[in-house]
């Protein structure tokens, strides 16, 4: 039986230095200084917060799903997970988590992957990689599509079976559940609050998430 570890945080929202709601389908990109703590709150439940990180001092070093998996020899993220860059450098550590499991294999939806997964007619629909690319375009700094690596899906459950199967499950998160992580270095965070309307995981109802930042 799989155990989901729930660890609550003692940080108070009224003491956060930053507090912002990201509506469904919107993007968010912001730098974190070393020691700052980022909390992402799943306000209404079963929403996917598609998230990428970069080493702010070396943006070519992006978050790496496989380095993160290799570092802990486990595919799921929860309290204690170290989120690593392609170089192996620790970018952030998850310090609290009331959801208990987050996905690092499922990646982000795109217009093109939607045509593959659902139907060619979904091509015009809004998607996470469009959000990522718009945020990178606004940021400048030399970021391009090359910097879009496989991302974390906070609050998503993508179980893998010992037989090699992969499925999408729902019901892991719930309204108000959150994940909290401490920056281990200067980090640029990029979030696409997923607008996916084709996947039953979110009951076809994308909802807002809240981001808060505290000093260490």
């Amino acid at each position: 039986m799989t155990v989901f570890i729930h660890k609550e945080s003692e940080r108070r929202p009224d003491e956060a230095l930053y507090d912002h709601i990201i509506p469904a389908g919107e993007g968010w990109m912001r730098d974190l200084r070393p020691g700052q703590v980022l909390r992402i709150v799943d306000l209404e439940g079963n929403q996917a917060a598609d998230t990428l990180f970069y080493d702010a001092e070396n943006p070519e070093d992006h978050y790496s799903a496989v380095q993160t998996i290799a570092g802990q020899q486990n595919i799921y993220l929860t309290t204690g997970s170290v989120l690593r860059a392609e170089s192996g450098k620790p970018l952030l550590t998850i310090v609290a988590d009331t959801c208990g499991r987050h996905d690092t294999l499922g990646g982000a939806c795109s217009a093109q992957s939607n045509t593959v997964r659902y139907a060619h007619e979904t091509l015009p629909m809004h998607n996470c990689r469009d959000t990522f690319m718009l945020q990178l375009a606004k940021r400048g700094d030399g970021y391009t599509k090359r910097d879009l690596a496989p991302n974390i899906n906070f609050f998503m459950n993508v179980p893998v079976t010992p037989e090699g199967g992969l499925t999408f499950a729902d019901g892991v998160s719930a309204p108000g559940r959150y994940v909290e992580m401490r920056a281990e270095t200067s980090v640029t965070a990029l979030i696409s609050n997923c607008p996916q309307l084709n996947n039953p995981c979110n009951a076809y109802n994308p909802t807002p998430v809240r981001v808060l930042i505290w000093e260490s």
Partner: protein
Amino acid sequence: MSSIVWSLELAPGAKWSGAIARGRLVRFTALEAGANVSMLLYNADDKTERYNMPDTLKAQYTSHLTKGHVLMSDNGRVLASIVEDGLGWHDTIGGCTTREATAAKYGTTSFQRERNDWLRNGRDNLAGELVRCGLGMRDLGPVVNLFSKVYCDEDGNTIFVPGHCPAGASVTLRLEMNALLVLSNTPHPLDPATAYPSSPVAIEVLPADPVDPATDPCVLRRPENRRAFENTWSYFALLGQ
């Protein structure tokens, strides 16, 4: 086997990169047991398009790769199909080795001391070839580890299966787009062997039969596969190719 148009024996620790045309087969054969080849793929004509592990896995509801699966790009197209496979499982979640991990596991080596017997690692091998191809570290992502099996238990722990690859095992890709392949014959990072595993791997390129959409097992495997093929065919139709 007069139809072989090119071949190479990839020595243990060696790397290689090059473009291979749409419509060709690439057959990898482990010449000794315990092989592992870490592979990245890019569209040779537009290297911003590359193999995408999440898109490949979720479209085919799989966490491993074998015959009938396709390797999808981040633009919803099929870069390559796996048309033959004697092993049943190739890994794409384990990543590749680093110099630090290689030294920690097998002992520190250097060219200064060991000359060409020093222990090479996947990331340095791939990084060098990526730069040679006009790419760089930012273009690194999940590799396909040919010949290696890593599965996950119910708690998500990644488990490497020793002895999965016997001598003579082979896997054949059919390229559905002109592809840049970047290869490193270096151990799987989760291989528990205490001695540096080293198996030479033969690579042979042959012509493929034309894809028949009505009967091809990779096209027919899932509706998702067919739509990815349709996206690929549209791409070439627009290019007039």
